[in-house]
């Protein structure tokens, strides 16, 4: 009996005290898209796009841009106008303006997102070629809410290998990892939102250069990423370009399956990396007459050559820009640790001296239903 009373007293003591952390779902303004940019005077601008749940509101999203010193400080500005408590627990997209990404240590601004355990670290980071406000205020009638639309856009683009997809967590990893530099998706706004390709960052994590969709595919193959589509449109040397309107010498292939072998070596004071690709290809379009059955190997050799050239020019681009988005540093560290250790802090510079070779073997697996 006495014990029963004790239990009861305990329970009653619990009741009023426990509700402090409660945050009802309809009272939350989810910051689904967070945008960071610099304005003309190089002040930080933080924008948030958040869905509106009220039936009485006509628009489904609310957007607000605030000027502030840091991200956490900006939260007050948002709470001054948003309907509910702002929360970063479900951020889907982080839009970073190009101007901001060219500043040193810009990544430190994202610290609160990583520090608070309640925040989601799987938000995708996207570089905006232009002002972020244009993108974040975009509210078309023929598309779902912007956050959902953008998330699907980025994920689909990543699957098609038009752009790389990097989450906040991954960017944090890559920035700290001495063996690789980052690549993130890039988009621009031109009346509608377009994926531009990938933006590559330098060792310090600041913006270095952009590559287009074909180069992104090549980069993905170099990284060994197996999923998604790899389409290439190539010029056939044996055919004439035609009258200029219908290109009679182009054909498109898709790499259905490929294997990548990478040998890491060290010779004569510099690193050597030998890539060897075996690619199974299927023919998607062919705008000139060619008997694939009879002279398929000629085509295969040409595809191999062309791809090797493309790989080489891309790698040269990387070496000149002193970046390592492929992650060759990881291999150097794994297989040539003793040579890696002394140069690990200036890996990108070392890589520009490295000897990188690519060899490609192509097999045409399918050509479609017509010859």
């Amino acid at each position, binding site marked *: 009996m006495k014990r029963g009373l004790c239990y009861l007293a305990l329970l009653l003591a619990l009741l009023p005290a426990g509700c402090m952390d409660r945050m009802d779902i309809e009272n939350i303004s*989810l910051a689904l898209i967070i945008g960071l940019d610099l304005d003309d005077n190089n002040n930080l601008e933080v924008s948030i796009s958040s869905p509106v749940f009220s039936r009485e509101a006509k628009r489904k999203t609310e957007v607000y841009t605030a000027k502030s010193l840091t991200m956490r400080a900006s939260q007050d500005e948002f709470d001054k106008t948003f309907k509910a408590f702002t929360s970063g*627990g479900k951020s889907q997209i982080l839009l970073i303006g190009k101007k901001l990404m060219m500043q040193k240590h810009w990544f430190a601004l994202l610290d609160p997102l990583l520090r608070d355990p309640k925040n989601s670290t799987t938000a995708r980071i996207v570089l905006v070629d232009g002002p972020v406000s244009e993108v974040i205020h975009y509210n078309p009638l023929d598309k779902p809410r912007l956050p959902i639309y953008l998330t699907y856009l980025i994920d689909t683009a990543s699957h098609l290998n038009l752009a790389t997809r990097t989450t906040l967590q991954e960017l944090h990893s890559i920035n700290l990892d001495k063996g690789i530099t980052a690549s993130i998706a890039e988009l621009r706004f031109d009346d509608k939102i377009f994926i531009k390709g990938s933006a590559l960052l330098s060792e310090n994590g600041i913006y270095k250069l952009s590559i287009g969709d074909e180069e992104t595919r090549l980069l993905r193959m170099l990284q060994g990423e197996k999923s998604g589509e790899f389409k290439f449109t190539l010029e056939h040397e044996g055919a004439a370009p035609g009258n200029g309107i219908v290109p009679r010498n182009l054909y498109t292939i898709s790499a259905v399956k490929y294997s990548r072998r990478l040998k890491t070596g060290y010779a004569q004071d510099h690193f050597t990396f030998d890539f060897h690709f075996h690619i199974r290809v299927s023919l998607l379009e062919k705008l000139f007459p060619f008997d694939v059955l009879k002279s398929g190997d000629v085509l295969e050799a040409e595809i191999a050559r062309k791809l090797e050239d493309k790989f080489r020019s891309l790698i040269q681009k990387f070496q000149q820009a002193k970046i390592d988005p492929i992650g060759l540093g990881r291999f150097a560290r794994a297989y040539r640790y003793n040579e890696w250790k002394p140069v690990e802090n200036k890996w990108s510079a070392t890589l520009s001296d490295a000897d990188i070779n690519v060899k490609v073997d192509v097999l045409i697996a399918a050509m479609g239903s017509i010859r």
Partner: protein
Amino acid sequence: MFPFNLFSGKRRYSSARQNAGNKGVRPFMPEQSEGEEHPLDPDLSRNLEEVARRFPNWPDFIVFRFVSGSDQIPAALLYLDGLTDKKAINDNILQPMMSSQQGNSPTRFPEPTIGDVRRAHNWQKLEYAIMTGDCVLLLDGCAHAVVYNTSGWPQRSITDPQLESSLKGAHQGFVETAAQNLALLRRYLPNKELRIHKTIIGKRGKTTLFILYLADVAHPDVLEELRSRLDKIDVDAVINTGEVAEYIEDNPFSPFPQFILTERPDSAASQLLQGRYVVIVDRSPSVIIAPSTFISLFQSVDDYSSRWMIASFIRLLRFLAFFIALLLPAVYISFISYNYEVIPLQLFLSIAESRERVPFPPLLEAMLMEIMLEMMREAGIRLPASVGQTIGIVGGIVVGQAAVQAGVVSNIMVIVVASTAIASFILPSYDMGTAVRLLRFPMMIMASLFGLVGIVIGFMTILIHLMSLESLGTPYGSPLAPVRWSDMKDTFVRFPLWSMVQRPKSARPIQDKRAGRGRPRGDG
């Protein structure tokens, strides 16, 4: 027994009941020790005077005076109208006696064609005999009375039990007469090893209890425990089996039933074969199966009549239903109040939109809906079938829909509550279903105070409670805790019958092979 004495709400048979029977009320039946007897008088008329004194003005008490046989000896037949089978009295007692041509002397009795004949030497036995439906014959010049078993009180015919109907099993249920129930069980186990102990409980009610078990299978320690607990019951009367179960259970403060109460003879028979004890309570159609385990409350007779794959599927469905019925409202509350990050984005948006219009906090909304549902359920029990169905539809659909339209509850809440209700109906044991219904509310409160952590702690508490609970000294959580792998064949899924060679260990049977070679067969 050690665990039985562990502290925390374990019942000590309350001494409160000790004195209830003797508290200043004149007992109807005086306690008589063996030595004291009020013998009958050989003189019939004096006996009849005593009878008139002991049974004054009873409207249903019949004293039939007649002259028996050719000797013309005065006799009287005493019985209670309504409790006796009058046809049997007429045909089998009066007829032969009154028309017998043999000489009847006080020492030679006529031979009525009744099976059970006893003698009563004192008034106490005579009174008891009359009050339990036997008829008593007094002969002039004889110092004892003869008691014939002619009980024939009204009883209902054997029908399918309401709460435990089965699709493919037998459609017989226990009735309110212990002897009939005994017969029904004997039909399943015509085996010499089936032992029956008889006890009587209740000072006034004098309810007969039969304890049945298989002597070579059931563990004797458990029998000891059961009998000692039954002997300690000291009350006026027990009306229902439920009362007996409550008096002898290990932990009356637990929401979970520690014994199975069943109305099905086939269910009881299969439990007997596992080495458990069946307690038949006279005047009540439920029997107690003791000891029982948590998992046995999820098993139903239909599982063994259907094919094992479908039976396994349904068994799994029951466990899923248990979790849904217990946890779904709590999980819903915790997700929309504390841990919204877990919900995928699209669902989040639609839930938020529907909750936006509701003025109540989630706990209140959930409680409102749950209590409405419980009230509808209780109301449905008392309504006649035709009206009940309509009310169900009206209440469920119309009121629910109207509530959503008016913005009093969100439509997700209606889905949650409806799913919970359906899930709690799937559980085959009524007591388990009510236990889950009850436990839902503390879980909802914990979820509304602490979110997911509260649910985990609440479930942990329930789990630990189940693990420490015992049923007649055997572990209630078996075969999950302590884990007994051989018993797992009939827990989450039902393995084919030919693979279930051993009896489950939870009842501690002393002979555990039920199939295959090397087991004692039948009456051996």
